[in-house]
């Protein structure tokens, strides 16, 4: 029995070992070690230069009394509430349209995907120009049609929705592709049968397309939630978290704690806590979306 269980190394195993070694090294250097080191940091105060100071659970005490962190969580949730439904609705609509036999279909698919591959910083700077209160193109167009200017990034009530619109525009291409894959996997005969039964296109959409896209929907919801939680570049470049902290996302706050104020231990604590929240939200979301199915 023992002889049977004993694994015998073959020459092909050695090759396999060498093949996976680069990833193992990468994992330990860039994931394993930082993870363990961050966990150690949770119990310390450290600004990189001065020696680490053991402070027990004081980072957690601060976390639960940190009004700004909870404000940044609230802002992130507001962003998600605007961004996820908008992104999914728009991506689905465009995917359904691009799934039809229309002229220049390939061109449109490429155009919608283009913002996904362009640098986030470049897009953010471009949109900053579009949103400019006095000279921005959007406000100039609004004024041409007789609507008063909107303080897109200067008003605490407008700033986060403005960022959510921009993020939707940037990421929608990726979700269009995912929905297109899902749409192309739906058998044609389902639609033909529905047509024979007299179902109209809207009924076909709600009773065939949507249920058949459920798996894709779960994937899109999870991906866009995780993407939304990591909101950073847009507020960092466009608003710095303002006005009145209305665009201060959790990731931006953690970044500021680490690299602006030099509180590495506290930032690590926030990071772990935030990761736990993301995990919790994604698990709940999966349960909810899957249950609907």
């Amino acid at each position, binding site marked *: 029995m023992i002889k049977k269980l004993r694994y015998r190394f073959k020459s092909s195993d050695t090759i396999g070992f060498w093949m996976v070694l680069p990833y193992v090294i990468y994992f330990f250097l860039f994931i394993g070690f930082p993870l363990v080191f961050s966990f150690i940091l949770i119990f310390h*105060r450290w*600004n990189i*230069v001065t020696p680490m100071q053991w402070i027990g659970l004081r980072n957690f005490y*601060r976390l639960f009394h940190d009004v700004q962190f909870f404000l940044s969580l609230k802002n992130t949730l507001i962003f998600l509430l605007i961004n996820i439904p908008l992104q999914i609705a728009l991506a689905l609509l465009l995917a359904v349209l691009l799934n039809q036999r229309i002229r220049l279909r390939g061109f449109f698919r490429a155009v919608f995907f283009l913002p996904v591959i362009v640098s986030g910083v470049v897009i953010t700077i471009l949109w900053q120009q579009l949103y400019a209160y006095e000279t921005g193109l959007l406000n100039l167009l609004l004024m041409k049609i007789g609507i008063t200017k909107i303080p897109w990034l200067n008003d605490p009530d407008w700033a986060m929705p403005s960022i959510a619109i921009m993020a939707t525009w940037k990421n929608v291409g990726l979700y269009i592709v995912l929905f297109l894959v899902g749409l192309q996997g739906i058998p044609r005969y389902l639609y033909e049968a529905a047509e024979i039964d007299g179902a109209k296109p809207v009924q076909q959409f709600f009773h065939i397309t949507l249920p058949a896209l459920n798996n894709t929907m779960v994937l899109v919801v999870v991906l866009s939630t995780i993407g939304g939680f990591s909101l950073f570049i847009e507020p960092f470049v466009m608003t710095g978290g303002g*006005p*009145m*902290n209305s665009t201060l996302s959790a990731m931006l706050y953690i970044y500021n704690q680490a690299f602006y104020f*030099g509180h590495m231990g506290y930032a690590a604590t926030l990071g772990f806590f935030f990761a736990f929240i993301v995990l919790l939200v994604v698990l709940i979301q999966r349960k909810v979306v899957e249950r609907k199915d």
Partner: protein
Amino acid sequence: MITWRFYFEMMQHQQRFIYLSLLVVSLLFSCKPKSSVQNQAKPKIVHLTYWCASNQNEINLAQKLVEKWNRDHPKIQVTLQPIPASQSSEEVLLAAIAGKTTPDICSNMWPGAMDDFISSGGLVQLDQFPDFYEYMRQRLPNDLLETFRAPDGHYYQIPWKTNPVMMMYNKRMFRQCGVLHPPRTYSEYLQAARLVTKDRDGDGHIDQWMGYRDIRPVWWQRFFDYYCFYIAASGGKTLLNGSEIIFDNEASVRVFRFFQELYLNGFYPKTTFQGDNFLAGNLATQFCGPWNVIHVEKFKKPDFEYDIAPIPVPDDYQGPTYTYGDHKNISIFSTTRYPQAAWEFAKYLITPQSDLKLLEICSQIPLRKNLTGDPLFQDYFCKNPMLEKFAEQALFTRGVDGSSVLKEIFDGISQEYEACAVYGKRTPEEAVKNATNRAQVIMEWNQP
């Protein structure tokens, strides 16, 4: 034929030769290390590295001072290097401490970062030098000197220069609007603002304001609005007293209320300007340090008239008007091999002659008693009357508290300033309370 006697004599010669050779070699070897030890203990030329601020004026000043020092002190030679470029000199210095690549001496030490420098063991304790107090008491009044003492009771910085923040105002605009003298109190300032703020070209938009402040919640921007006004209103208090928070007081509330009124009434614009609107004649006042005098003198139009006045204070305030002084000091780093030589060089940097050069080249104010009464400086101040006003203010300045969390406390104040003063979404009382609560949490977390 070689006889035994000859052989014996030869051996004797050889032995003598060997003994003699050994003696010479041992003498040589014994002398060489001894001489190198002597060289280490008493080097003929000591080399020091000196880092100055990286702006051109201060580089020019440092070059002049170092050239003279090197001429006069052939045995202590100083090499000048401007602080390497980065977002802030504090970051560079902290990185240098971590990498043990600090210079021997640096003259761009910001008191707000001293806590980090000291706790990382990067600085030499200066009160160990027997003549430290003698020099400092000649230079500064005791109460001001005390503000530079570290929490451990020692001194790690030599107070060198200050840039008091004062009110610069457009004399001609005030005169044209019926403001007869520069406002001294909040009421006077608001009254002047009502007269000054207007739409000059009648297009329905205000284009002349009482003042302008950067409305972004960037922590150091508060030095030029909340903080200098708070120091003035509180009679010279700072934010902290050791680990105790002391800005939750009436002075803070009044400052927030004052700025809230300015924004609420449109006396200050809620926008970001490009260019210098004070010089363009669109602003009546601005709050700045003496460095701005050079800029204004260089770029002003021929008919532009301006003057300097202290920061306005609450109506019932009595006593001298204090303000924020952006102090920059001198420190010696613990990596130096020659602390005594570095101390000698530091003393040279604060001689009256060096201070005069600081005024002449940089238009920055040395932190020195009786500056305006000293005959050495009188000629300079006769030629530069604007800077004399800053010099008179210099001893009534307060810097920042040396705390490693000061930046974050200022950030909290900035957030509340934005919410209360700029957007009017919080009352001044709420703003002060929120900023204090946040500071309290940070201070508790930062306790040793």
